C-alpha cells in the first residue's frame, strides 16, 4: 500500500468507492440459493402456526369450536381472541394511531381476517387442523365503497362507537377515520372562481398490493430459562418491531432480540405489524417452543397491507396561456377495516401534500378523508415514499387533463410551469421545502433523447392512418415529470409510534485495516451491503471489498427506523458518511502523531494522510488502523470506531423525467411498450449499476400497477384477485426494455449529496404508463379513464369512443 507508483485516480478506483458500478456482494449467495430467509430458519422442536380466516367480509363471530382440531394428533393449541385477551394481546396498536384485532374479537371486518391460530407439530397438521376449526358466523351487510360507507347506517367499527375524536382529529361519521387538511382552502377556491381555465377530474388510484416474492412470516423463540425472546421475521423496521413487541407484550426491551434475516422484497408490505407475528410470539410463550408462521401467497394478497385506493377529486386552475395558478384536491381514502397505514404519526395521508409536484403552483389546498370499509387494512407505501405515488399520479394526470382543456402540448405545459433551478430551495404551497432541482435541464434532455417532436409527428400520421382505416393500432406518448419527497425524516416532524425517524451507523475498523459497519436499516434487495461499503470506502480510504456490512439484528445493530420510503441512503447513508468522518478525524490525529507533525499539517489524499507539501511522507488508512491498536498515542484512546445517529435536517427531493411510447390495439385492448426512457436525478450516484437495477425493478412494478395489477373485490367483499393468475406480476416476457439516463443535482443538505432512488421509478412509472394509454386516445376525445389499464378496460375506452363500428 505504501506504493507511490499509483496515481490518486488509480488508488481511488481500487477502493471501489462511490461512483463505481461495483458488483453486488449479496448476489453470490442469492444466485446460488444460499440466502437465509425466515422460512429457512429451523430451530429445535419448532412448531408451526396457521390461521383460520374469515370467508366473510363482514360478519359476527358467533362461536368458535376448537374440539375437532384439538383432537387431531400433533395439534398443540388453538388460540382465539378469548385466549389472547387475558394478555391484552387480542388487539394491537397500528402505526396510524388506530388499533387492530389480532384475532377476531366478536366480529370480522374483511375477508381473510384472522379468526383463530392453530399450532401444531408440523406445517401440514397445522393446515389440516385449521380446516377442522368450526366457526359460526352471522353475516352482516358489507360496505366495499368508501362513498357508500360514509353514508351508511352500518357501523363497521363498533369498538369505536360514540368516539367522535380519532387519532387525527374529529370523526364526521361512524365509518369516518380522519380529515387531514393542508394549504389554503379559501385562497385556492377564490383562485378557482376567477381563473381563465379550470380543469376538473376524478382521478382514482386503485387498490393494489406490494406482493413481495417472499410472503410475510416470523419465527418466535421464547427461552424460558433466560427469559429472552428471539423473534425472526420479515421486518422492514426490526428495531421498531422490538420496541412495539416490548410495549404490547410487557417483555423488557433488552430481553427481546429481533432479527430480520434476508428479506425477499418488502416494497412496504413488511413495514407494519401483523397478527401472525403476535400469534407466533404468544404461541412460543405459551408452549415454550419456537413457533414458525409463514403465510402463503393468497393470505399475503388478501390480508396483509395493500397499497393506494385513493379517490382524488382534483381541480386545477390556469391562465389561458397555461400558467397554473391553483390546485385543489379532495381525496377519499379507503383504509379498509382498520387504519393500519404506515405513515409518520403527524401525516395520516403520508406526504400526499407533495401533490403540487414539479410545478410552481402558488396556491393549493388538499383535504383527505380516511374511511373504513370491509376490506383488508394497510395503505402502505408500495415502492414509494408515503402516498407519494398517489400524489405524483394525481398531479401528472391533472396536468394532462389541463393540457387537453387548454388544447396545449402536455410537454410544453409542464415546461412553462416547472419550478426553476434558481428557485431552490423552494417553498411549496402545501408546506414543503424542496432541497434542490433542475427540472428544465432534465426535461429537455429527455425530450431530445426520445425525439419528442418526431414522435408527435408519427402519432399525428398514425391518427390519420387510423381514420383512413389503414391501421387498428394507436400510438400513445406518455409523459411524466415527477418530484418525490423521501428520506423521512427530521425528528422534529417525523416519528412512527413516537420514535423519531433518524437512522444510524456504527463502524469498527479492525487492526489489519478491514472493517465492519452496522446500520439501523435493513436491505430487502436494495444492495445495502454493496453501496454502504462504497460510501465508507470513499470516506475513509479502505477498499469496499474489505468492509462487511451488517443489518437486521437488534442485538448488534444500532437503533434505526428501518428501510422504506427511500430513506436508507438519505438517512442511514448520511449516518454512514458521518460515522466514517468521525473515524477519519481520529485517523488524522494518529497519522499526524506517526508522521511527527501537527494535526493540521497533514491532508487527506484518497486512502491516506500525507504531510502537506510532502506527499511522499504519508500514512495509509491501513497503517493508521494498525497503529490505532498497537501504539500508545498520547491523548488518544486506543481503537478506531465510531457511531453516528443522523437526524436529517430536511427530506430529499429526487426527481425524474420519464417517457413511454406505447402501441395500443383498439380491437383487443392489448398494448405493447415500444420504448421506455427513464431519466433519474437522485443526486450523487453511489453505484450506477445498482441505480439501473432499482430503476428496472421499479418501472416493472409500475408497469404492473398501471397495466393490470389490482386487488379487486366483488360487492360481497370477496377478493377477486387472490392468486398470481389474476394478480398481475409481469414476467420477463411482459417487461419491456428500458433506457436509463440521469442528471446529477446533489442534495445540498446531505453529507454526500445523495437523495435516494429505489422508489422513483414506481412514482414516475405509473403516471407515465397511464398517460401513454390516455395520450393514445386523446386525439379521439378521451379525457380520463381509471387504471388499471388491462385489456378490457382499454377496449372499453375504444368502445366508448365508437371505435368498434
Amino acid at each position, binding site marked *: 500500500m505504501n506504493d507511490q507508483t499509483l496515481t490518486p485516480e488509480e488508488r481511488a478506483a481500487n477502493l471501489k468507492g462511490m461512483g463505481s458500478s461495483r458488483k453486488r456482494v449479496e448476489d453470490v449467495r442469492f444466485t446460488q440459493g444460499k440466502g437465509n430467509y425466515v422460512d429457512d430458519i429451523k430451530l429445535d422442536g419448532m412448531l408451526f402456526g396457521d390461521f383460520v380466516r374469515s370467508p366473510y367480509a363482514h360478519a359476527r363471530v358467533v362461536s368458535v369450536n376448537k374440539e375437532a382440531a384439538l383432537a387431531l394428533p400433533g395439534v398443540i393449541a388453538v388460540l382465539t381472541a378469548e385466549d389472547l385477551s387475558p394478555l391484552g394481546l387480542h388487539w394491537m396498536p397500528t402505526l396510524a394511531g388506530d388499533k387492530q384485532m389480532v384475532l377476531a374479537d366478536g366480529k370480522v371486518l374483511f375477508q381473510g381476517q384472522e379468526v383463530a391460530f392453530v399450532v401444531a407439530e408440523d406445517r401440514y397438521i397445522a393446515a389440516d387442523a385449521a380446516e377442522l376449526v368450526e366457526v359460526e358466523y352471522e353475516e352482516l351487510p358489507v360496505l366495499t365503497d368508501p362513498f357508500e360507507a360514509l353514508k351508511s347506517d352500518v357501523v363497521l367499527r363498533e369498538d369505536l362507537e360514540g368516539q367522535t375524536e380519532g387519532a387525527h382529529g374529529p370523526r364526521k361519521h361512524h365509518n369516518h377515520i380522519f380529515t387531514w387538511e393542508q394549504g389554503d382552502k379559501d385562497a385556492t377556491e377564490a383562485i378557482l372562481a376567477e381563473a381563465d381555465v379550470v380543469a376538473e377530474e376524478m382521478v382514482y388510484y386503485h387498490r393494489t398490493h406490494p406482493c413481495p416474492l417472499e410472503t410475510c412470516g416470523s419465527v418466535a423463540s421464547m427461552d424460558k430459562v433466560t427469559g429472552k425472546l428471539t423473534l425472526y421475521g420479515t421486518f422492514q423496521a426490526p428495531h421498531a418491531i422490538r420496541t412495539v413487541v416490548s410495549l404490547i407484550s410487557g417483555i423488557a426491551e433488552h430481553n427481546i432480540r429481533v432479527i430480520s434475516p434476508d428479506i425477499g422484497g418488502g416494497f412496504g408490505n413488511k413495514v407494519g405489524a401483523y397478527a401472525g407475528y403476535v400469534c407466533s410470539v404468544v404461541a412460543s410463550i405459551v408452549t415454550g417452543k419456537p413457533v414458525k408462521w409463514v403465510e402463503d401467497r393468497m393470505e399475503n394478497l388478501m390480508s396483509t397491507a395493500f397499497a393506494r385506493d385513493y379517490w382524488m377529486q382534483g381541480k386545477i386552475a390556469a391562465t389561458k396561456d397555461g400558467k397554473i395558478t391553483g390546485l385543489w384536491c379532495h381525496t377519499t381514502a379507503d383504509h379498509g377495516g382498520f387504519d393500519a397505514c404506515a405513515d409518520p404519526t403527524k401525516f395520516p395521508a403520508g406526504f400526499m401534500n407533495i401533490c403540487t409536484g414539479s410545478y410552481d403552483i402558488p396556491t393549493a389546498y388538499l383535504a383527505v378523508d380516511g374511511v373504513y370499509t370491509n376490506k383488508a387494512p394497510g395503505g402502505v407505501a408500495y415502492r414509494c415514499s408515503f402516498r407519494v405515488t398517489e400524489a405524483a399520479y394525481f398531479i401528472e394526470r391533472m396536468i394532462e387533463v389541463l393540457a387537453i382543456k387548454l388544447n396545449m402540448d402536455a410537454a410544453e405545459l409542464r415546461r412553462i410551469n416547472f419550478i426553476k433551478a434558481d428557485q431552490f430551495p423552494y417553498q411549496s404551497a402545501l408546506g414543503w421545502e424542496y432541497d434542490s432541482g433542475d427540472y428544465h435541464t432534465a426535461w429537455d434532455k429527455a425530450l431530445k433523447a426520445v425525439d419528442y417532436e418526431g414522435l408527435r409527428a408519427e402519432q399525428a400520421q398514425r391518427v390519420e392512418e387510423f381514420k383512413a382505416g389503414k391501421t387498428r393500432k394507436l400510438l400513445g406518448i406518455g409523459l411524466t415529470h415527477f418530484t418525490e419527497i423521501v428520506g423521512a425524516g427530521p425528528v422534529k416532524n417525523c416519528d412512527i409510534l413516537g420514535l423519531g425517524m433518524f437512522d444510524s451507523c456504527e463502524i469498527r475498523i479492525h487492526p489489519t485495516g478491514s472493517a465492519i459497519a452496522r446500520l439501523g436499516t435493513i436491505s430487502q434487495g436494495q444492495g445495502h451491503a454493496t453501496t454502504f461499503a462504497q460510501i465508507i470506502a470513499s470516506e475513509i480510504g479502505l477498499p469496499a471489498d474489505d468492509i462487511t456490512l451488517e443489518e437486521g439484528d437488534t442485538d448488534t445493530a444500532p437503533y434505526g427506523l428501518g428501510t422504506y420510503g427511500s430513506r436508507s441512503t438519505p438517512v442511514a447513508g448520511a449516518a454512514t458518511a458521518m460515522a466514517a468522518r468521525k473515524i477519519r478525524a481520529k485517523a488524522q490525529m494518529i497519522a499526524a502523531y506517526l508522521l511527527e507533525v501537527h494535526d493540521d499539517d497533514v491532508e487527506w489524499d484518497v486512502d491516506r494522510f500525507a504531510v502537506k507539501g510532502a506527499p511522499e511522507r504519508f500514512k495509509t488508512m491501513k497503517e493508521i488502523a494498525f497503529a490505532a491498536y498497537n501504539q500508545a498515542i498520547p491523548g488518544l484512546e486506543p481503537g478506531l470506531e465510531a457511531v453516528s445517529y443522523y437526524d436529517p435536517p430536511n427530506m430529499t427531493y429526487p426527481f425524474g423525467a420519464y417517457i413511454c411510447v406505447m402501441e395500443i390495439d383498439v380491437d383487443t385492448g392489448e398494448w405493447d411498450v415500444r420504448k421506455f426512457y427513464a431519466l433519474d436525478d437522485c443526486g450523487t450516484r453511489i453505484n450506477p449499476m445498482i441505480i439501473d437495477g432499482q430503476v428496472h425493478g421499479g418501472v416493472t412494478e409500475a408497469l404492473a400497477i398501471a397495466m393490470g395489477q389490482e386487488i379487486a373485490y366483488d360487492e360481497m367483499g370477496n377478493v377477486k384477485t387472490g392468486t398470481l393468475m389474476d394478480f398481475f406480476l*409481469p*414476467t420477463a416476457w411482459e417487461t419491456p426494455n428500458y433506457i436509463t439516463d440521469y442528471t446529477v443535482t446533489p442534495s445540498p443538505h446531505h453529507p454526500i449529496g445523495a437523495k435516494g432512488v429505489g422508489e422513483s421509478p414506481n412514482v414516475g412509472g405509473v403516471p407515465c404508463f397511464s398517460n401513454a394509454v390516455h395520450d393514445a386516445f386523446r386525439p379521439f376525445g378521451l379525457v380520463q379513464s381509471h387504471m388499471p389499464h388491462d*385489456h378490457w378496460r382499454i377496449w372499453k375506452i375504444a368502445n366508448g369512443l365508437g371505435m368498434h363500428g
Partner: protein
Amino acid sequence: MIPAGFEYHRPGDIASAIGILEEHGDEARVIAGGHSLIPMMKLRMAEMGHLVDLQAIEELKGIEVGSDTVTLGAMVTQHELITHDGLAAAIPLIREAALQIADPQVRYVGTVGGNVANGDPGNDMPGLMQCLNATFDLSGPDGNRSVAAREFYEAAYFTAREDEEILTRISIPVPGAGVGQAYEKQKRKIGDYATAAAAVMVGNGTASVAMTNLADTPVWSESASAALADGDVNGCVAAMLDAIEPVADNRGPVEFKKHVAGVMLRRAIDRAQNRAG
C-alpha cells in the same frame, strides 16, 4: 396452499394403474404433470386419498407420426410437442398452440393427456383437438374404447371419461397438404388462460373451427366450419359467436369476450387462409 394428506402410488403399467383406481374408487385420481391437479389440491378444491402417478408408465409415452395419423401418448409433455420436428411438419398447429400454453416451466412437465383429460374450459388442447378431429383412447376395467374429441366434453370438469378409465393415447388425422392452420390466443400475460382463443384449419374445400374458454366446454361449431369451408368468413364468425357462451370474469365482461372472440377468430382464419395451399 397446503394440500391435505394422500397416499402416493407409482404403477409401472396401465393395468396396475387401473387396478389402483378400481380399488379406491372416488378416493383415487391419476396425476400426470400435476400442473392443473396440484394447484387444485393446494387450494383444497381437490382432495383425494390416493394419487396414482402415471410417470413410470412407458406405454403412455411417445409420439408417432404416420402418413395419415399422428398418435400422441397421454404422457407426452407439452415441451415434447413443441420440440418434435416430425410432428411440427405433419401438424404445425400443435406446436403453434403448445407454444401459447403457460410458460416453459409448466410445459416441461404438463402433459397433453392431462391437458385434454382435465376438462377445464381454460385448457387450450381440448379446442385444438376438436379442431383437428382427434380421437381419445381410453382404457378401463371394462377394456378399451375410443371417444371423439368432439364428443368428449360435457361440462366444466365433466367428460365422457369414467372415473376408473385412463386416457392412454390421442390419435389425430394428418390434415391434407394445402390445409392452412392457425392458433390465435389472447391472454393477459404469460401463464394465463385464454381470454379467447381460436383454432382454425382451412383448405381443400374443408374447414374446422374451434374456440377455447368461451363456454364451459371447448366449442367446435359444425355450421361455422361449414361456412368457412364455403369461403364465407362472416358467416363462420357469426355462427361461432352464436355458439359460444362466455361468462364474465376478471378478464372482462361478456360483451368484451364476444368481441375479442370474433377478433381472434378472424385473425386465425386470416392466417390459416394465407397458409393454405
